[in-house]
Structures are given as structure tokens and as C-alpha cells.
């Protein structure tokens, strides 16, 4: 374990989410408890001749209601949908942390909120206007809506954060990288507090066509580790944490939800789509080492579990290499079976699911898992969640390009 100043241990004091199965943490947790399916017919735009007609879309999210109370950021309701999700999740996390903007010590705060692709829905609308509707100009806010750092900027403006503010971008590991970087900043004394995570909202005609062309989407549903699994299902949403140094949280009397005990990052450096076992294994191993715990200390693992054959088999093998015999005793689940694959936001949403599992002593299931793939022979908590004391938990994110980031959460420091 890297020697970390005890005062600079990193704790979680707030969490926020927007997901297809709940647009705040209590609703999301309720959805996980019920085994709610967030996947349904894709809509909201002309589906034309799409072959894949399902997605996990966020429904009933009203930015003008949810973000109405924003004081400093005057443009938030005119921003892209991905910024709305980020702002709503950050707002929930800050409220849970008992913090209000503008932050008291603004240069000692960071806002690292990533996105795999930024405002792709805005992009498509603008290009439709230009190329199909032959409009003379795009909407003036097009550029500001599109850029992948606009969510972090919006949140930074609202909460008056003047320290490091930027987005990470690593496809499906975006949120976990953001949370990992924020952890480093806090440990190293760059800042005392950080809003970290990611947001994604890319479900439109062009994105569906691009994913369809890669032939990794399922026409039926997201069934991780199952024999019937035949691809992933696009999702959307945001998952954001408020992280603080232990000393900072203690000094202001904040309620500490969990410790961000360790994280690991690695890159396969081999192939854009074919994952290695080594990369994910090393990221998990580094996260455990960073946390200073043995593999046997992990009680629950929130898998990347995308329901692609490559991921599910590879992740299973990598878990076995890291955990040995303990792999078979470990409670593992892919909550993507319920909320779909929210791409860059995945690690943030799943971090919240992981921390809630620790708080509530209940591990969420992998739904749709009646008949497992014989090569996926671990305990993936099929269909029904269960009571289980969770002291330490791991959350995996493995992205296209072989970009891996793994987080380990533990109990609040004694």
C-alpha cells in the first residue's frame, strides 16, 4: 500500500445519480431492489430503418423542474441533456454532502466530471439542421452544448469551484478515471474536496447506427453472463460522488458514507475491441494493493458486465486470476442488466450502487440470468438480490481501447 497521510484518506460524503431506473439515489436503489428493467423500445427521435430498436433511456426527467433552483449557472436549462444529467446528479450529491455553492474555499475544490462523447444529441440536431433542413446557421449554443467539458464547467459555475475543473474521456471507464484522479488530487493535497464522476446521453439515430455497425448491440436485451446474452444495450445517465479528505470531512462534521480505499488504472495497449485478461487483472490487483487489503477482504464486486461475449468471459477469467478460490465465494453482479450500459457514466452509477450495497447490507442482482454461459461460472447473484454484509467492495470499468479503471470502497475510517 502506498503510504497515505491518514488525514488525506479520501472519503465519500455525497452521491447522486440519474439513471433509466431512477433519477435520484433513493429511486435508483429502489429500482435495484425491485430488479427493475430500464430497457424498453427506443424513442424520442425518428427510428427510421434502425435494426436495434431498444435502449435504456431516462424517462420523466424535467430539467426545468429539477434544475430550477440553480442560482449561479444561468444557462443550465439550455445545455445539452448530458449536462442536465450531470448537473442533477452533482446537485443531489452536494445536497447529501450538506454543501452549498459557492464553496467556501474555491481554489481547494475540484470538479472532474467526464463524458465519453459529450453532447452528441446536440451534434446530430445541428447537422440535421445544416445538411437536411438547409438552415443557414446552427443554434448559437450548439458549440457550448457539444463540448465534452461543458458538464464539468456548468457544475463548477453553479457551485463556485475554482480549482481543477475538466472532463475525463475514456469511453466506458470515464467516470472511474475521474473518480480516481480526484482521489489522487485529494491524497496529494492539491484539493480538499472534489465533485467527480461522469455523465452520458448519446442515444440518437446516428449513435444507434454507429453502434449497430459495430454489431455489439443486442436486439433483445442486456443479459450479462447469460447463455442467451447477445450484446449490450445502450443506456444513459450520470453518476457523481462528492469526495473529501478525511480531515476536511471530519472538520466540518460531515456524514462519511464510505472510504474510497483504492483504485487502479491500466491499459491493455493491444486492441481497440478485444480485451486482454492482463489489463483488467492488473487494474483490479492495483486497486487492492492501493487499498492495502487482500483479495479475500472484498465481499461484493460490481462487474463491468456488459453482456458482450468478449467482456463477460474475459472479466470472469480476470476475476479468477485476481481472487483465486475467493472468486467463487465473491458476490458479483452486473447492474447493467437493469440500467443498461450508460457508457462513460457507468463507473459513476455503479460506484453509487456499490456504496449503497455497503450501506444497506444488500447486494443487487444480475437480472435475466436464468441459464448462465458455462464459461461464466461465478456467483453473479442471479435475478434476485440478497442480504449480505459488505465491508469492502470493488467496481470494475473496462472500456473500448482496453482502458481499465477499478475502484475499491471500504467502511468509513474508524
Amino acid at each position, binding site marked *: 500500500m502506498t503510504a497515505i497521510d491518514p488525514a488525506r484518506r479520501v472519503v465519500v460524503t455525497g452521491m447522486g445519480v440519474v439513471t433509466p431506473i431512477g433519477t435520484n439515489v433513493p429511486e435508483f436503489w429502489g429500482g435495484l431492489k425491485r430488479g427493475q428493467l430500464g430497457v424498453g423500445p427506443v424513442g424520442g427521435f425518428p427510428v427510421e430503418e434502425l435494426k436495434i430498436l431498444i435502449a435504456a433511456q431516462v424517462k420523466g426527467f424535467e430539467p426545468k423542474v429539477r434544475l430550477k433552483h440553480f442560482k449561479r449557472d444561468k*444557462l443550465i436549462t439550455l445545455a445539452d441533456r448530458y449536462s442536465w444529467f450531470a448537473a442533477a446528479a452533482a446537485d443531489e450529491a452536494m445536497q447529501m454532502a450538506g454543501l452549498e455553492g459557492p464553496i467556501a474555499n474555491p481554489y481547494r475544490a475540484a470538479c472532474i466530471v467526464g463524458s465519453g462523447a459529450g453532447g452528441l444529441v446536440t451534434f446530430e440536431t445541428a447537422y440535421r439542421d445544416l445538411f437536411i433542413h438547409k*438552415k*443557414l*446557421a446552427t*443554434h*448559437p*449554443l450548439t458549440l457550448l452544448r457539444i463540448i465534452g467539458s461543458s458538464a464539468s464547467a456548468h457544475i463548477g459555475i453553479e457551485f463556485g469551484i475554482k480549482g481543477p475543473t475538466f472532463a475525463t474521456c475514456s469511453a466506458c471507464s470515464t467516470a472511474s478515471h475521474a473518480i480516481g484522479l480526484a482521489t489522487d488530487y485529494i491524497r496529494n493535497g492539491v484539493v480538499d474536496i472534489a465533485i467527480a464522476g461522469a455523465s452520458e446521453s448519446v442515444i440518437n439515430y446516428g449513435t444507434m447506427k454507429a453502434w449497430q455497425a459495430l454489431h455489439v448491440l443486442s436486439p433483445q436485451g442486456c443479459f450479462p453472463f447469460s447463455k442467451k446474452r447477445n450484446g449490450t444495450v445502450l443506456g444513459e445517465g450520470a453518476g457523481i460522488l462528492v469526495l473529501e479528505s478525511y480531515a476536511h470531512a471530519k472538520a466540518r462534521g460531515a456524514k462519511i458514507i464510505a472510504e474510497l480505499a483504492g483504485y487502479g488504472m491500466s491499459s491493455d495497449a493491444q486492441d481497440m475491441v478485444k480485451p486482454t485478461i492482463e489489463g483488467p487483472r492488473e487494474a483490479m490487483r492495483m486497486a487492492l494493493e492501493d487499498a492495502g487489503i487482500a483479495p479475500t477482504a472484498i465481499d461484493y464486486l460490481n462487474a463491468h458486465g456488459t453482456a458482450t461475449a468478449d467482456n463477460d468471459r474475459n472479466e470472469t477469467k480476470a476475476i479468477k486470476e485476481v481472487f483465486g478460490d475467493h472468486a467463487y465465494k465473491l458476490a458479483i453482479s452486473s447492474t447493467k442488466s437493469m440500467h443498461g450500459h450508460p457508457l462513460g457514466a457507468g463507473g459513476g452509477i455503479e460506484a453509487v450502487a456499490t456504496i449503497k450495497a455497503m450501506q444497506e447490507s444488500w447486494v443487487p442482482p444480475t437480472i435475466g440470468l436464468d441459464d448462465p454461459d458455462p464459461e461464466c461460472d461465478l456467483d453473479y447473484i442471479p435475478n434476485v438480490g440478497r442480504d449480505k454484509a459488505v465491508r469492502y467492495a470493488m467496481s470494475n470499468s473496462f472500456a473500448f481501447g482496453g482502458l481499465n479503471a477499478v475502484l475499491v470502497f471500504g467502511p468509513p475510517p474508524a
Partner: protein
Amino acid sequence: MDDVATKIIEILKKHMKEPMQSIGLETALTDLKIESLDLAMIVFDIEDSFGIEIPYNANEEASAFKTVGSVVERVKSLKAATGG
């Protein structure tokens, strides 16, 4: 007031944080308290409504436009030039 002026004033009001009740042709643009981003949105809306392009650079002072009336006149001349 003609249709062009009515439409332009409607657009101005839509983008103002605190819409003034009485906007006339003689109203100075500086009295409207329009911020730079709002101006870009107003220009976009006017261009879209009238099918014209207004030469305008956010880095330069819009000195050609002093009053609402000067905007209306400019839009009319651009409309005429594009055959609109």
C-alpha cells in the same frame, strides 16, 4: 409598426432576462441589457425567422446597430438583397 419590426421586437423580448414592456423603434439597444450570448441567440433567431445572414462578429462592437429601428432597417435591406 410593420410585420418586420413586430417580429424583431418579439424576438428581443423572448431573449431578455427582464423584458421591457415598451420597446419601440427608437429604443437604444444598450437599454435592453443584452449579454453577448443573448445577442448571439437573438441574431440566430432573426436570421432563422427571415432567412437572412446578418454579418456580425461577437468580438467587434456592433456600432452599426444603435437602436431597435436600425436593426429593423438592416433586416429589411438584407431581406431585399436576398430576394426575401
